[in-house]
């Protein structure tokens, strides 16, 4: 096994709000290899998006990375100067967002936006930058790219807009791509296309892909490994097939049980009781304990990180038998 291209260790990002400190990300660790796809799964407010933004150093005040490290090819990005961080963003680590209508600038043409992105890292002529942009558009499957590059975002369909965003992320051949729910805003049929294409592109370029999603079904078809987040931490992680077949953490199990594809027709969909805790007032110990069927007094203390081969979990009472 080679050294991981990105290694995150004990990352914590807190938001210092008037109501208190929101621990959006609190002690997240994972590593990812070149060409690997990691699915980061969790419900809204689990800290998965904040984790993504933290990787690029894109946390705005009142948020701040309070501890931990994000090592990109051995260099720790936490604590880097603004200029050094900027030089890495888009060049070696890129990000794609949820809604391409919101991310692309509506009043600049695709050519203008893409050449700005080229020039952010390389001093090339305008013509050369444009040529690079067209090649990137062709690679993500934009038809008639050389002509359409002068169009504006509103002239593209949702799926095409997201392809443009992906092309921008791929411009400099980054080592790591963070994709924050990039298919959520799209039609289901387009979702599947983008999903397969992203996987292909990551494999071709050798980039590591971190796919952030609330949709376990989507991620399971795409990711080599899955990390499940709950209340700012990764509660379970491992190879996709094994986590899905045999979840160890009660939360993962609950999530899987709530998947519509696994439900018995005619019966109510199983739910996890309760609601996600407020990040401002997390219960002591395991944050899932108030909703957990297996919880007891031991869960009031911090659960240890247990490992078994390629997988790991954080639970005092892991589910050891196979999920039904």
């Amino acid at each position, binding site marked *: 096994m080679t050294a991981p291209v990105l290694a995150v260790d004990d990352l914590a990002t807190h938001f210092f709000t008037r109501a208190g400190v929101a621990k959006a990300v609190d002690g997240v660790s994972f590593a990812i290899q070149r060409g690997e796809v990691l699915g980061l799964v969790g419900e809204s407010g689990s800290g998965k998006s904040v984790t993504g933004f933290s990787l*690029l150093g894109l946390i705005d005040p009142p948020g701040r990375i309070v501890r931990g490290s994000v090592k990109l090819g051995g260099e720790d990005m936490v604590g880097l100067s603004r200029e050094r961080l900027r030089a890495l963003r888009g*060049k070696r680590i890129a990000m794609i967002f949820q809604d391409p209508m919101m*991310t692309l600038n509506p009043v*600049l043409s695709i050519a203008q936006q893409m050449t*700005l992105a080229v020039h952010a*890292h390389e001093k090339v002529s305008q013509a050369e930058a444009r040529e690079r942009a067209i090649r990137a558009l062709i690679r993500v499957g934009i038809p008639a790219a050389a002509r359409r590059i002068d169009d504006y975002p509103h*002239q593209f369909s949702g799926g095409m807009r997201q392809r443009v965003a992906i092309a*921008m992320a791929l411009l400099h051949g980054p080592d790591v791509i963070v994709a924050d729910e990039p298919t959520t805003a799209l039609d289901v049929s387009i979702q599947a296309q983008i999903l397969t294409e992203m996987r292909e592109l990551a494999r071709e370029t050798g980039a590591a892909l971190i796919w952030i999603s609330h949709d376990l079904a989507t991620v399971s078809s795409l990711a080599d490994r899955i990390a499940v987040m709950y209340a700012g931490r990764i509660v379970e992680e491992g190879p996709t097939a094994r986590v899905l077949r045999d979840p160890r953490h009660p939360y993962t199990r609950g999530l899987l049980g709530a998947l519509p594809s696994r439900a018995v027709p005619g019966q109510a969909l199983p739910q996890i009781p309760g609601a996600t805790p407020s990040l401002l007032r997390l219960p002591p110990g395991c944050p899932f304990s108030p909703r957990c069927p297996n919880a007891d007094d031991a869960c009031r203390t911090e659960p240890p990180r247990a490992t078994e081969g390629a997988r790991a979990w954080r639970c005092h009472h892991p589910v050891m038998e196979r999920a039904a």
Partner: protein
Amino acid sequence: MLGFVIQRLMQAAAVMLVMSALVFIGVYAIGNPIDVLISPDADQHTRAEVIARFGLDRPLWEQYATFLGRLLQGDMGRSFVFGMPVLSLILSRLPATLELTLLAVISATLIGVPLGMYAGYKPHSPVSKAIMALSVLGFSVPTFWVGILLIFGFAVQLGILPAGGRGQTVNVLGVGWSFLTLDGLKHLALPAFNLSLFKMSMMIRLSRAGTREIMLSDTVKFARAAGLSERVILGRHVLKLISIPIVTVFGLELGSTLAFAVVTETIFSWPGVGKLIIDSISTLDRPVMVAYLVLVAFLFIIINLSVDLVYATLDPRLRKGRG
């Protein structure tokens, strides 16, 4: 685009027609100019003769029709007081107002927008708070008072800038312009600053609000994720996004200042159209008032049309579905 322009021109003609009628009736209602025009001790015969000469014995609708007919031939009538054609009277005063207003509005934009963008970019820095304090001041302090203070400070106490008048002018296209000579620029400085203070405050607030909002948007986050520097993000992404409201206010301010720079022109005895309209109201010089207001309406229409055309070049989404 051509269809859009034609449509707008037809709208403009309708607006002009309604506007001219409103103005005519409004001015008619203000008072009878005869009392001002004819000396009280004139005999009945002279009175009747003067009234007939100005067409004031006719009913309102007939006077309006006559006025409209002449207007269409480019004749806006003669001033009762100055005895010269109204159009040339206004045009002789317009350059003074034009240069004052343009200088004020343009400098307000060129200074106000960067300051506002800075304040929106770093909302919590002391400099931004100072900028916002300045803009509150610019909004709330009355123009005439600032004008008097400026004269007191720069003209009376320091003696470095003149207190009024246009200074030395240069004739270009048959009219005199102050901004082409050093002396003229000195005379322009104080009134232009006085006039621009309020507009600058408006530009600061507008660009600050826009910048703050856009800096939090996904567009900026995505640009940052692509590694764009903050300078490029502000200069290319944000500026273009906030430019539509700025152009709108620029147009409105340009129009209203051209028409109603009265206070500043009075304080700095600047011989522009603002002073002319005040004088003609006090002497009930009806043709001047009517012609002036009709011209102002025309000016607003031209400015609004230009603003609409600028919109289309700024925002590609507006280019379709027009016309």
